[in-house]
């Protein structure tokens, strides 16, 4: 076997073929069901996620426990191909309100070091049910009416963003 063929196919071509097949199957499973690649669009997660950034959704992140406060999660719409990327700020059972841009959880101000732009948003108090989380983007400098945020059912949360 020539050196070129040996470099491409290895010393045992059938074994190389099996390795390629296994790699392909593992890649398909990983990137279709476990680590979903997403490209963020829009400005609602600025400055932490700029428009056009590519990242992965870990769909196994919440198998054993639900999301924690501060997690950045993907929320499905009709399916998994277009998702909202938001930060979890309210957990099931909590009371949440926003006054002048400051988030209060059960009456206590929430520290949010990740928020760099903050407008004077006001949201009346809501009480989350046992299956609801409150999610919001990091860019609070935009108009609240242009920003999708609020209560979401746990079953819509696809997973946590890896990075």
């Amino acid at each position, binding site marked *: 076997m020539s050196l070129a063929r040996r470099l491409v196919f290895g010393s045992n071509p059938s074994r190389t073929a099996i390795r390629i097949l296994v790699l392909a199957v593992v890649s398909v499973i990983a990137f279709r069901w476990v680590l979903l690649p997403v490209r963020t*669009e*829009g*400005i609602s997660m600025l400055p932490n996620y700029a*428009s*056009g950034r590519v990242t992965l959704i870990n769909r196994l992140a919440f198998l054993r426990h639900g999301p924690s406060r501060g997690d950045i999660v993907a*929320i*499905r*719409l*009709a*399916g*998994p*191909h*277009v998702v*909202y990327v*938001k930060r979890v700020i309210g957990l099931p059972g909590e009371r949440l309100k926003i006054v002048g841009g400051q988030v209060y959880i059960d009456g206590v101000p929430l520290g949010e070091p990740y928020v760099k732009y903050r407008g004077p948003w006001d949201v009346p108090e809501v009480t989350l049910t046992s299956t609801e989380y409150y*999610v919001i983007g990091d860019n609070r400098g935009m108009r609240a009416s242009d920003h*999708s*945020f*609020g*209560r*979401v059912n746990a079953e*819509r949360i696809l997973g946590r963003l890896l990075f």
Partner: protein
Amino acid sequence: MAAVCLVVAWQRWTTSEERAIRTRLLGLASDLNGPDAGAASLLRAARFGDYFTDDVVVELGEGSPPIIGRATLVGMAARLERRTTAARLKFDDIDVRLRDDRTAADVGLTASFMREDGTGGDAVDAREFALQLVKRDGQWRVARAAAVAALR
């Protein structure tokens, strides 16, 4: 062998209607994203109304009154188009469920609206919609479209 043939025929029959609905919806998006001036634009406007039933109802969600009737919808779309020529519409995750009589279907999809945000990038708004389509005069037409609130 006959059973296999029946199953294959049934599957093909099912998928052909589903495919027709998907093609119809993608055609709607394509027509909305088409050229913005000239004869093509006029043709597109004429075609747009054809995607809906006369008594179509479009519910955009809390705070927006429902749009009732094809004429109203076409008029609104024409007025909106003049202000949003840079906007593009895309449908993803189209899930078609045919009803038993096969002349109506429930469809779920995500509609993404992309427009130039003035900074060189695309600003995106995405909404989930639940549609009801009916087959009239041999064509699938949208009879009802309602926005589904993923975040409340």
